[in-house]
């Protein structure tokens, strides 16, 4: 592909950037970073997840700067991420240590530890709440006070930081095969561009930083017929994971010397996918496999769709597009897809001229 090297238009470009700032502030309304952090949970979570950088503050700043334009916010945060030094790797986290805020199963009504609904839009009527137009701080305070008082009377029966996994319970019943831990060092897709065929670790990394809409759409396609997965959500949990790092210069790598560096909120999904297999005597048998989804923040649709795509790619027969890792993994990235589409706005004067030329020649002939 040939592009013309374009030089010029500097003043016009500068004026365009001025114009952009003008559009952002022309109404003289200020959106505070703390307001974004406090009230735009869903968007902040999505930006952090698609950027692979867990910082609510920086995500909020990116949202403000990009006027809540998702692809731009993700682009900004990814660009910033690439300038940061890499200093530590956290210890591997087991999600059964999660401080659970929400935990449901669509496979079993009674799960050990119980279903915890937490905060979700799932149970709301999708009706516009016109009261929010005139929401006042004093009313908020009264509501919060009331809520706090009510909460005290509720009894806490189970330890929310040590809820057993549903899948472990099924493993005990021998309904799932025990899988051995695979402790090979994963390939980091942010350091090494992916090469096909990929490892599962690479797939999970690309899926978790995929654009929410794209992951959801392809996950849906996999269920609708452009794939062969119909999962049941075995367990969906939203909560905070504690992160620790080993003492950087300690050669013994003693776990007791670890530093606690904070917590991150994640959504984790384990979906059970029935797979029918042909046994030796031509008898069909059904086995369950697990699709896994995890992403920063609370983004349940993305995590479930990710678990579907994980399973779909794991099968990887290539019959359906959602089983084709190149099709899925190379197209769901926000920066890559929006970047390529945007590049079409760059001058293509020469390529287009040459097409026109050949068209004219053909017409003349």
């Amino acid at each position: 592909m040939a592009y013309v090297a374009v030089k010029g238009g500097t003043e016009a470009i500068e004026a365009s950037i001025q114009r952009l700032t003008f559009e952002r502030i022309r109404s003289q309304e200020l959106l505070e970073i703390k307001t974004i952090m406090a009230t735009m949970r869903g968007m902040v979570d999505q930006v952090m997840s698609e950027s692979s950088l867990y910082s609510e503050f920086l995500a909020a700043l990116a949202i403000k700067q990009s006027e809540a334009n998702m692809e731009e916010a993700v682009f900004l945060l990814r660009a910033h991420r690439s300038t940061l030094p890499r200093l530590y790797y956290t210890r591997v986290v087991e999600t059964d240590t999660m401080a659970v805020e929400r935990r449901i199963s669509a496979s079993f009504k009674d799960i050990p530890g119980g279903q915890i609904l937490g905060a979700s839009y799932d149970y709301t009527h999708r009706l516009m709440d016109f009261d929010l137009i005139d929401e006042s701080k004093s009313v908020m305070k009264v509501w919060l006070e009331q809520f706090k008082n009510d909460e005290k009377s509720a009894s806490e029966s189970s330890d929310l930081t040590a809820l057993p996994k549903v899948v472990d319970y099924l493993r005990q019943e021998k309904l799932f095969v025990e899988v051995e831990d695979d402790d090979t060092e994963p390939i980091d897709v942010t350091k090494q561009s992916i090469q096909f065929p990929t490892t599962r670790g690479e797939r999970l990394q690309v899926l978790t930083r995929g654009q929410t809409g794209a992951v959801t759409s392809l996950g849906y396609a996999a269920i609708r017929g452009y794939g062969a997965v119909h999962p049941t959500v075995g367990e969906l949990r939203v909560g905070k994971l504690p992160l620790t790092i080993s003492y950087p210069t300690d050669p013994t790598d003693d776990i007791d010397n670890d530093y606690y560096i904070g917590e991150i909120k994640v959504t984790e999904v384990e979906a059970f996918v029935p797979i029918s297999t042909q046994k030796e005597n031509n008898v069909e048998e059904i086995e369950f496999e697990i699709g896994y989804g995890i992403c920063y923040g609370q983004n349940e649709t993305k995590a479930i769709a990710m678990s579907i795509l994980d399973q779909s790619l794991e099968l990887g027969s290539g019959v359906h597009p959602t089983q084709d890792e190149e099709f899925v993994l190379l197209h769901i990235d926000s920066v890559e897809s929006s970047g390529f589409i945007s590049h079409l706005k760059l001058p293509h004067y020469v390529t287009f001229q040459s097409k026109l030329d050949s068209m004219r020649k053909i017409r003349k002939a």
Partner: protein
Amino acid sequence: MVIDVVHNTQEVFRTILHCMSRPGTIKNIDGIGSRMEQLEKCHHATFLSVMTLLDAEVSFHIIGGNAAVLEELFTAYTLSTATDLGQADYIFILQDAQPQMIHEVFRRAKKGTLMNPQQSATIIMETKKLSNDPLLTIRGPGIETMENVHIAESELWRFERAEANQEYPLGVDMILIDCQSNMMCLPRTTKFQDCEVS
């Protein structure tokens, strides 16, 4: 803060990039940050390069008198790990390094593979004096015709460097630093005029 880890290191990085793309160009980085007192055995510019180039993702090796002390210090500041000469991403050759050790560096340093020539070592070498006096001439990409350089005691390693770089694209890149914090780069594509003859 003696060194601003964001802005100073960015400035140093841009300088290294500039010198790498224009071999033979000498830039001074003495004014960036201020000198660390416990680092009397290593040039200020060397330490700036350390802060710019090292983090936990890369490894380094030091050749020179008090390597052990500096290793500990570099690790403490950057969380980078000291490793064997043959595996290091960055190799620091300090002013007081023995000539035979310098030869060893060029022999054993990583030179990349044909598939991944970028997986090679970068050698950061302290030298007494760098200038553009017409003593040696260099040629190669990034130099219009040729450039005059004077690198003190370069006869100690010029031949070894040429040997290390003979199978292009394999090879090692060099950053040279003198006591006045002057910096010059010699990427693997740069050739000394008289080395070609010998």
